[in-house]
């Protein structure tokens, strides 16, 4: 009788020890390194959620890559929505600081992206709440870089950082510095 009770106590102690180590480690990992998220909405079609509401893609979000706020044009990133801080939105980076973009539906035809900001757009123009609505977003709102689609299994792929050809920039910062027209 005493032996079986001792076994339960030992088990309980071991469980508690493991629990208080595993939980902070897991939380830190999910916050700082990578986590997984389901994509809702149609603003990134056809890259993400081509099936619409029938099947939502699940993507791998890599926090570690953006810990120094380094992104490239064409990356798919998740960021805190500037209009609603409780929500995260997932868009493609079109332009970095210093670039001049030709906007679609923005109040100004051409916008120069200020220092410390980026211009993001959804691939499905017209059905996307992006920089064409709220302007350039500050890099501090960057949350993670979406690198792979994990679910459904038939859509398992690495997301490429490619700028859509029709969204070529009017002038990028490198061109300005080199003095090309």
């Amino acid at each position, binding site marked *: 009788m005493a032996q079986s009770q001792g076994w339960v106590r030992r088990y309980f102690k071991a469980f508690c020890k493991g629990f208080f180590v595993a939980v902070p480690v897991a939380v830190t990992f999910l916050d700082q390194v990578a986590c997984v998220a389901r994509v809702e909405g149609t603003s990134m079609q056809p890259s993400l959620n081509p099936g619409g509401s029938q099947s939502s893609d699940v993507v791998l979000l890599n926090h570690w890559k953006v810990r120094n706020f380094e992104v490239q044009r064409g990356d798919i990133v998740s960021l805190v929505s500037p209009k609603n801080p409780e929500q995260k939105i997932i868009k493609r980076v079109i332009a970095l600081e210093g670039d001049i973009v030709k906007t679609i539906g923005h109040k100004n035809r051409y916008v120069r992206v200020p220092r410390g900001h980026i211009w993001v757009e959804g691939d499905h123009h017209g059905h996307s709440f992006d920089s064409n609505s709220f302007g350039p977003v*500050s890099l501090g709102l960057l949350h993670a870089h979406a690198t792979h689609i994990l679910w459904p299994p038939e859509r398992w792929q690495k997301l490429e950082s490619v700028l859509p050809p029709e969204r070529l920039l009017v002038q990028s910062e490198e061109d300005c510095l080199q003095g090309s027209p």
Partner: protein
Amino acid sequence: MEVQLDELPEYFLWTKYLKVTTHGVDPVECGADVQAKEVSRVGLYMYQCSGPSMEPTIQNSDIVFAENLSRHFYGIQRGDIVVAKSPSDPKSSICKRVIGLEGDKILTSSPAGFFKNHSYVPKGHVWLEGDNLQNSADSRYYGPVPYGLITGRIFLKMKLKSHNCKAFDTDEKLQTWALIMDWSYGAFTN
């Protein structure tokens, strides 16, 4: 205004899920800017402020403590002093007072001017101003700041004075800091 600050020793103290970190700060020229590193889920942060933009509330090289629970539960009020990531440089932080929340009407022109310009703070943004209005780069300069850039709310400040101790001078220029027991629990909320 450039101030020479030496590095504070850095140490971590884990108490369950609270992380208290001290940081050395590089001086920044204008505004009460702070240097901070990682933001944890539930955290208590300690910063050293540099710059004149929050005088007289926070002086240059004061130590301040900030918590991020208010920010997570959307409890930031008008009148709170917050630490936020700088809109033009995500790696540095700014320390300002919240003047307006979303939807508030803000006077953007000079209060003594003849023509008064008002604007409304857009949804999801806050309007930040330093207490030292003549010497502060804030929302009057770069516009309303998205709420997502706020990292913490300051609730405590402490004065710190350094002493040069010759006995400890080494090639690495170690200096000891003498804490002056001057805890000022300023009125940071209204």
